[in-house]
């Protein structure tokens, strides 16, 4: 070290502009680029398409037009008069009901499962968590087909129930039950994992303290366990509800495609329907619902922030 460096404390060194002086900016740049191209640009494109005009033979032209959004609520007659049609609203409502039901059923199953896993020893815990995530290693389409076999005519479940007197040749396929089964199955891990994380964090002595202070099981669950695991339950619900809204595969394959959900409706418009602007408009509508839902839950979480 030179003499002058010894006598000059670091703070007095002349300020030299360095290329990396704004490290947070440069460090996060890859993230910004990725987010921009992978998220923002596609959303802008879809938004743009949603206000474009449908071409005569499929495709679209870049002419500003809100007709696609109008089409969600109104049917345009021959003479140009607008007639209210609830058919798409019905699909939106169905989507919400099915996604809500999926979330609820996942929650009912996931809480005891997560609670059970959280109470195991470290080794068992790791194995069980691995088993919960195991289905992710298999292609989703394969898993749905597996369910089609299980529930379909001559499949294991109908055959099992036929031995209890169910008429032969019964199929549980191509209805809301089948759709719901596949959706609950698909999204269950997304509920189990965050709920498990919050239950595992829960201090067992708090449960003991509740019992010690004369709380029975139900009171303990209601007043202590649920409030303290709420953050995990809320994030699990978001992780299940949001992708459920956009589910395509399950309603198409399991529901038989007769009863549509928003996801399959969008897919149809971009595919067989050849109506890209309308598909984009429904996609944007779906996204708006999701964003509103997320803002609502984030707002609630922020208000309760000092608790968790």
């Amino acid at each position, binding site marked *: 070290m030179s003499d002058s460096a010894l006598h000059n404390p670091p703070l007095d060194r002349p300020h030299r502009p360095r290329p990396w002086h704004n490290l947070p900016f440069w460090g996060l740049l890859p993230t910004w680029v990725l987010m921009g191209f992978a998220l923002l640009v596609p959303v802008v494109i879809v938004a743009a398409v949603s206000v474009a005009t449908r071409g005569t033979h499929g495709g679209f032209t870049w002419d500003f037009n809100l007709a696609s959004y109008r089409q969600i609520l109104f049917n345009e007659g021959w003479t140009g008069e607008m007639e209210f049609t609830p058919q798409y609203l019905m699909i939106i409502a169905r989507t919400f009901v099915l996604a809500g039901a999926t979330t609820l059923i996942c929650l009912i199953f996931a809480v005891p499962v997560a609670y059970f896993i959280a109470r195991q020893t470290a080794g068992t815990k790791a194995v069980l968590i691995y088993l919960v995530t195991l289905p992710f290693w298999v292609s989703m389409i394969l898993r749905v087909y597996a369910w089609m076999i299980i529930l379909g005519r001559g499949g294991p479940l109908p055959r099992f129930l036929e031995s209890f007197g169910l008429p032969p040749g019964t199929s549980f396929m191509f209805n809301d039950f089948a759709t719901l089964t596949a959706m609950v199955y698909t999204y269950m891990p997304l509920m189990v994992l965050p709920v498990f994380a919050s239950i595992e964090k829960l201090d067992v*002595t*708090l449960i003991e*303290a509740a*019992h*010690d202070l*004369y709380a029975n099981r139900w009171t303990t669950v209601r007043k202590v366990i649920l409030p*303290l695991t709420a953050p995990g339950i809320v994030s699990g619900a978001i992780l299940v509800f949001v992708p459920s809204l956009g589910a395509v595969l399950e309603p198409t394959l399991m529901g038989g495609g007769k009863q549509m959900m928003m996801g399959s409706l969008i897919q149809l418009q971009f595919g067989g329907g050849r109506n890209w602007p309308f598909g984009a408009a429904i996609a944007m509508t779906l996204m708006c619902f999701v964003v509103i839902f997320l803002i609502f839950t984030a707002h609630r979480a922020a208000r309760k922030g*000092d*608790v968790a």
Partner: protein
Amino acid sequence: MNEAKAVEVRSVSKSFGTYQALRSVSFDIGANEFFTMLGPSGCGKTTLLRMLAGFETPDSGSIRLHGREVLDLPPHRRRVNTVFQNYALFPHMTLEQNVAFGLENLGWDRARIRARVGEMLERVHMETMARRRPGQLSGGQRQRVALARALAPDPEVLLLDEPLSALDLKLRQAMRDELRKLQRDSGITFVFVTHDQEEALDMSDRIAVLGAGEVQQIGSPTEIYEEPANRFVADFVGETNFFDVEVLETVAGQATVRTPFGLVITAPETGVAGRRRATLSVRPEKVNLGDQAQGVTMQGQVVNKNYMGGYTHYTLDIGGIELRASRRNASREGDAIAAGETVNVGFAPLSARVLAS
């Protein structure tokens, strides 16, 4: 002992796998008593406390609270409250709500709960923070709230699981006095678990020393310290010197023994009758040095000296045998004996103890 028994523990045993935590433990705790279970970690004291609370079930034996068998009652049906080691305050509730929790579950009406919560928070000097949450409190404050919460339902027995261990030294001192006062004022039976012998000696009416899953001795703090029942108790409670001695004669609670110093002394004994070898226990503060040396007197050289402020520890060499002594520094010159010096060393035989080895 008090006529009414708050707790009766009878032949309680418990194993965890191959590890035997408790071996046929029996004792009684009187009503309004401050009873301490003292012992090293793993001695079974916490297991016993958790059995009283209902979180553990003994493999065999019985536990009665105020004459009533409780083993078939779950924790929430026992009129017992616990102050947990880490306090276990509900983080999502205000202090008020924490204290009210037990009362709500007991079905008290709102007005009565409000009054009781106010009264309890006042008693632990936390009334100004009623609306805060546990996360905003210091360790000592949490401790007080945990006490208020456990005392609010007016339990038959209050269980305290090492409640002072997380506090710093000064605060621990203050809380000891406060706990003792709370116990006297409330008239509730306190069962206190600790591994800190000083805490136990300071606060308790009676102490049960537990070791290796068994009750080693039960008695008043003075009995435990001055008349230890065995080597384990003498060793665990306080500092002491142990010497292997040869028993020459035992008569009426007194044993005449030959010490390794060559001297023959007669000192009080416990459980030595009929044995040839025993252990002599001499507490360091009972050993006098220099011109204060009386009783059994010997010559010893100061090998090491540790000045502790209020007192000084000396390690002495008496003909090749080590003896520790401690002396209160009553004046500035209290530690006038220098290392290397040869001094008179003495102790009164009555203050020593002959124990089964």
